[in-house]
């Protein structure tokens, strides 16, 4: 197998791997802070409108969301296994696992899209120009839905990026012979995927399980 040529600034492959992993974790830290601004807003408004949040949360389909959580957790498993398969050079297995990851990611988005659609039908989408009706829920209800759509929207956006990245990884696994490079990159994609998963793990109870 052909090997990676080492860029001029590195002296050893291990040095490069460490640099790349470190960079990825730093990137995830910045992502965490980016979402942090949203979680903080959520916290503040939940403190201000505790009852409304509970009432509004009851409008959402928590079973669907629980199912979706399961879907994402499963995708985390498949991508973790895929990374290992790549490292062990089991190309076919790796491809299947990555494909499963993409499929799970897509089903998440479809289910989420369906959820949004039902909410649209119930006049819960606060976009300008849409008809909304929060009268049953009390003041602060729109704030809940603003938070809900922005935060789940941001998450869906990140997940879509993740899906695109995993698709690219599939191409690498299928056609590249530079195992070290492919392993490194798939590993990074995995880190990102897991991070997006973790975000959802927190979104789930915060939006669907308010009492």
């Amino acid at each position: 197998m052909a090997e990676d040529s080492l860029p001029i600034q590195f002296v050893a492959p291990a040095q490069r791997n460490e640099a790349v992993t470190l960079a990825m974790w730093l990137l995830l830290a910045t992502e965490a802070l980016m979402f942090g601004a949203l979680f903080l807003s959520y916290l503040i408004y939940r403190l201000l409108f505790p009852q409304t949040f509970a009432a509004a949360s009851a409008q959402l389909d928590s079973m669907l969301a629980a199912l979706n959580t399961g879907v994402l957790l499963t995708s985390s498993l498949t991508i973790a296994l895929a990374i290992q398969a790549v490292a062990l050079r089991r190309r076919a297995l790796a491809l299947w696992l990555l494909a499963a990851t993409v499929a799970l990611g897509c089903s998440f988005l479809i289910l989420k899209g369906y959820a949004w659609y039902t909410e649209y039908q119930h006049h819960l989408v606060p976009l300008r120009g849409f008809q909304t009706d929060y009268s049953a829920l009390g003041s602060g209800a729109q704030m809940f839905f603003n938070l809900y759509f922005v935060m789940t929207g941001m998450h869906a956006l990140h997940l879509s990026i993740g899906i695109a990245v995993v698709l690219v990884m599939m191409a690498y696994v299928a056609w590249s012979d530079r195992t070290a490079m492919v392993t490194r990159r798939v590993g990074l994609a995995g880190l990102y995927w897991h991070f997006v998963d973790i975000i959802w793990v927190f979104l789930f109870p915060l939006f669907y399980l308010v009492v």
Partner: protein
Amino acid sequence: MNARRYIGTYLALILLLTATVWSHGFELGGWNVVINLAIAAAKAALIALVFMQLLREKALTRIFSLLGLSWLAILFVLVLADYLTR
């Protein structure tokens, strides 16, 4: 073998998920939130430690993985210091 650890972790995650949903059925007042968030944190920790290989990473990477969290803590604590004493 890694695969077995992964699958074990996955089962634990699903178990935790079931636990959250199940606990949602009970009226526990403030405790519901606590349980939910504790479970979410446990899930996140499992994913980070096992799936994201933090257990096997160098100390430096582990420190950096905590960086985002610690800074979030600063943000939350100091903003709450304002809101809770207004």
